[in-house]
């Protein structure tokens, strides 16, 4: 019996609680890994490692990681389909919530360390500065997604509605990249990198959508099972 076959048999025989245990451990690992960027910032802050303009470093770092987690959460579906690692869906919610977490830190940095809670100044900014308007919108659009991230919410909203609502992440991602591109002075290389990755991830969905449209009569998947395919 080949190693591969043995592995298949084993996994088929493996009781559910073992698989569950594995996912839980993976989640713990992902959770801890997702805190590394924050830990690094904290460590540097305590050790005088944030350089000449610490607040700028904090703003840029939390913004970067928000975008990275948004792109990661959008990568889950293509990666699990292409690699057939279907269990990956089990960590997507956590990654999405980390995008919201870093987005919140980024937003907090802005309202606290940049605007010092001056509401008037912030409103002026949001009205006058396109890159703030866009960034603010991207953040606000993530709030309903974070609030409805629980299994209970999926049940309450119904799979199809929940799915529709959570497609807002595409808009958040696009606005997030535009926010970045509009704030840089001349060096567009990083926003272009993020934009390139986002384009691939969106193109994948358009491709899937187009091919499903063509073969629709053959597919009759119930809405609930499609949640995992978003």
């Amino acid at each position, binding site marked *: 019996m080949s190693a591969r076959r043995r592995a298949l048999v084993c996994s088929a025989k493996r009781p559910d609680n073992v698989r569950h245990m594995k996912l839980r451990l993976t989640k713990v690992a992902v959770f801890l890994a997702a805190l590394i960027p924050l830990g690094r910032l904290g460590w540097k802050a305590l050790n005088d490692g944030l*350089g*000449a*303009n610490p*607040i*700028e470093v904090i703003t840029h770092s939390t913004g970067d990681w928000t975008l990275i987690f948004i792109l990661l959460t959008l990568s889950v579906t293509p990666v699990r389909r292409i690699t057939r690692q279907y269990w990956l869906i089990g960590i997507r919610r956590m990654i999405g919530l980390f995008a919201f977490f870093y987005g919140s830190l980024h937003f907090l940095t802005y309202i606290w360390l*940049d605007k*010092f809670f001056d509401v008037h*100044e912030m409103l*002026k*900014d949001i009205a*006058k*500065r*396109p*890159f703030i308007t866009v960034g603010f919108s991207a953040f606000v659009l993530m709030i309903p997604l974070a609030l409805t991230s629980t299994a209970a919410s999926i049940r309450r909203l119904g799979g199809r509605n929940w799915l529709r609502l959570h497609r807002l992440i595409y808009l958040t991602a696009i606005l997030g990249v535009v926010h970045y591109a*509009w*704030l840089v*002075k*001349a*060096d*567009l*290389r990083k926003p272009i990198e993020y934009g390139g990755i986002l384009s691939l991830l969106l193109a994948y969905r358009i491709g899937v959508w187009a091919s499903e449209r063509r073969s629709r009569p053959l597919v009759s998947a119930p809405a609930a099972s499609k949640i995992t395919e978003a």
Partner: protein
Amino acid sequence: MLIGKPPGIPWSEVTPKSTYLNRRTFLTAAATVGAATLADLALGDLANPAMTVRADAKIDGIQKSPFSTTEKETPYKDVTNYNNFYEFSTDKYEPASLAKNFKTRPWTVTIDGDVKKKQVLDIDTIIKMAPPEERIYRHRCVEGWSIVVPWVGFSLSELIKRADPLPKAKFVEFTTLLDMRQMPGQRTDVLHWPYVEGLRMDEAMHPLALLCFGMYGEVLPNQDGAPLRIVVPWKYGFKSAKSIVRIRFTTSQPLNTWQESAPREYGFYSNVNPNVDHPRWSQAKERRLGEFFKRPTLMFNGYDQVASLYSGMDLRKNF
């Protein structure tokens, strides 16, 4: 078989008496050179180069200036590790290391255009044109942060007077070195190289406009624009061109690099002005490095004495 006398040591091998007598000097010299090399290597690796004070970097005979502010100077470490110097990198933390081996000697500056004495001047000739002064200036970046730096140099007017521009010269244009080998940022096209900046003649002749070759009492560090830059304290930082190789006098207004890059956002004048926002962000406040709260930005960066240069001009249009 006759075996001759064993061959003696030929005279050619004999150490001359003088060398013999000097052998200790030679050994000492060798040891000194060796030790110095080792020390240099060790220190060069261990100490942060941006923070090491080289003995020969001190500038002698620096005079105080009435133009200096009494505000707290920004730490040397921050001014040498946080640099907008796109010729090296668009990342402000990178020029400190990328400019480490930048060659500032030999260095010449070409003076040309509408000027009586077109000439190529050696950097060390320029530096000796006038006594060095310390000018502690506020420096405000267009991005919204500011620093206080004790620059060393003398008024730009000293050089301009000696160059003797023609009456028709109305502007002065400054060009930064173009050398992709030494300046890796120039291998990217984030800006159109070489970097060009310009001043109106009366701005350039204003005593506050500084021709600068040092800071904190020492030779200018590479990442801060060595060996020669200008400092125009009432304008946003990008107007203060670095690592200058050419000073050209012109009748028409030069097209400065940032204006060329984004004409809607960066003008020719670029005076610090809290009332005229950058199209994408407010200029009303600034973060002084080292301070937690933002402080209000001052008109002309607090250098009101330049206001008369712009009387009658609409500073919203001429931003």
